[in-house]
């Protein structure tokens, strides 16, 4: 399966995935208008139709969608993206909570306004000038013509440009992490997922996570976690030595 040829039928776009990417990179399509969840759904249903896991396709898709999400997030928070990524987890949670709280409040305010409008539907005001009102003469003091030039210079000021550098990041395929984890389990019976992925980028860690889930589906490992966000412990099973080439048996639905 070739991810780039995935046919999409979204509100904002209809066509193959690679055309969407091209349009987004050329800034001919507003990424903010693209519902990325829809793309994920399209990919999943395509996988399901095929009935088999294509790990390379999954890896490629994950990378592209992660990049799209990041780009979208940067588009929405242009000047803050960097700042946000530098926040400590506690601060990030605080910031997220603040935004969620703002949004909840604005949703309630919107509901209040709607009610208000409903109640005001029988109140008609004149919206234009009165038919027989005196004509208004607006006089403007003498203006400095330099202000005209200044206005255009302000319009000519380049905004800081969005970095597209992260779109070009290279990511290892899922299979690389499969091999790496199998090698670790050959030496030890267990390891902590977090310590294995320490130092990797977020997207690489996500690819590793997919590989870990893959091993579990295949019965090569079992996973333990004391609570949400606690470290994930990966334990090798005895079956592990007997399993090879599980990719082909992986059923998309079980993801």
């Amino acid at each position, binding site marked *: 399966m070739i991810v780039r040829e995935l046919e999409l039928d979204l509100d904002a776009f209809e066509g193959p995935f690679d055309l969407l990417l091209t349009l987004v990179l050329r800034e001919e399509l507003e990424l903010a208008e693209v519902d990325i969840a829809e793309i994920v759904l399209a990919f999943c249903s395509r996988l399901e139709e095929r009935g088999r896991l294509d790990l390379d396709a999954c890896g490629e898709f994950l990378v592209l969608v992660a990049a799209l999400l990041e780009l979208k997030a940067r*588009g*929405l928070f242009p000047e803050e993206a960097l700042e946000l990524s530098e926040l400590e987890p506690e601060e990030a949670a605080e910031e997220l909570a603040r935004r969620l*709280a703002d949004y909840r409040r604005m949703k309630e*305010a919107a509901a209040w306004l709607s009610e208000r409008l409903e109640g005001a539907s029988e109140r*008609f005001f004149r919206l234009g000038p*009165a038919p027989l*009102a005196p004509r208004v003469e607006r006089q403007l003091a003498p203006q400095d013509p330099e202000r005209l030039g200044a206005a255009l210079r302000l319009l000519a000021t380049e905004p800081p440009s969005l970095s597209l550098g992260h779109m070009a990041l290279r990511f290892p395929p899922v299979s690389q992490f499969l091999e790496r984890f199998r090698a670790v389990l050959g030496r030890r019976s267990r390891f902590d997922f977090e310590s294995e992925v320490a130092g990797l980028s977020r997207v690489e860690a996500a690819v590793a996570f997919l590989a870990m889930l893959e091993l579990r589906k295949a019965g090569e490992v079992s996973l333990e976690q004391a609570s949400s966000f606690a470290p994930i412990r990966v334990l090798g099973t005895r079956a592990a030595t007997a399993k090879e080439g599980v990719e082909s048996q992986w059923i998309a639905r079980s993801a």
Partner: protein
Amino acid sequence: MDRPLRLISANPVDRLARVVEALLVVASQPLSVEDLAVAANDDTERIETALRLLGERYSEGRSGIVLEQVAGGWAFRASREAAEACATLFERPVERGLSGAAMETLAIVAYFGPCTRPDVARIRGVAADSVVAGLVERGLIAESGRDAEAAGAIRYKTTPLFERVFGLESLAALPRLDDLGGEADEIRERLEAVAEKRPA
């Protein structure tokens, strides 16, 4: 029961009240007590007395013209019993078909304005361009300069028309932010709890 037509009250409002009603009938915006005092060249206390007098005369049930305090001032509107007739004659393009997204955007601009489209997008989580353009076209929000920090993005604020359409005496008549979003604090607490558990 055929009484003679006596439209003129036996107790005609005094001269100042007549001047005030004249000002209100030609104004295109609500007029504050101060606006009225300056125009009528009288003091604000006497203007307030005149407004009280006019408020009784121009009230629902008594008159087709109703005096209302709105958008930081006073304005005449049509009585509710004439709403249907007004609806037949005047389109209400301003209010017609305001979507949920438009309401949220209006709320954000009303509370946080002047603010930019990226500001609105940050709170709503989706782009706000077409919604903002629609609200500008309806005259409910208007440009208010550019934000020098946010790459020259245009800032928007709500207009007096917004207050009139929503029947607000002023923006201060909006619910207090603290009284909105009771759930928000709960969410915040939960997220903070998660953050504490998270290994650094």
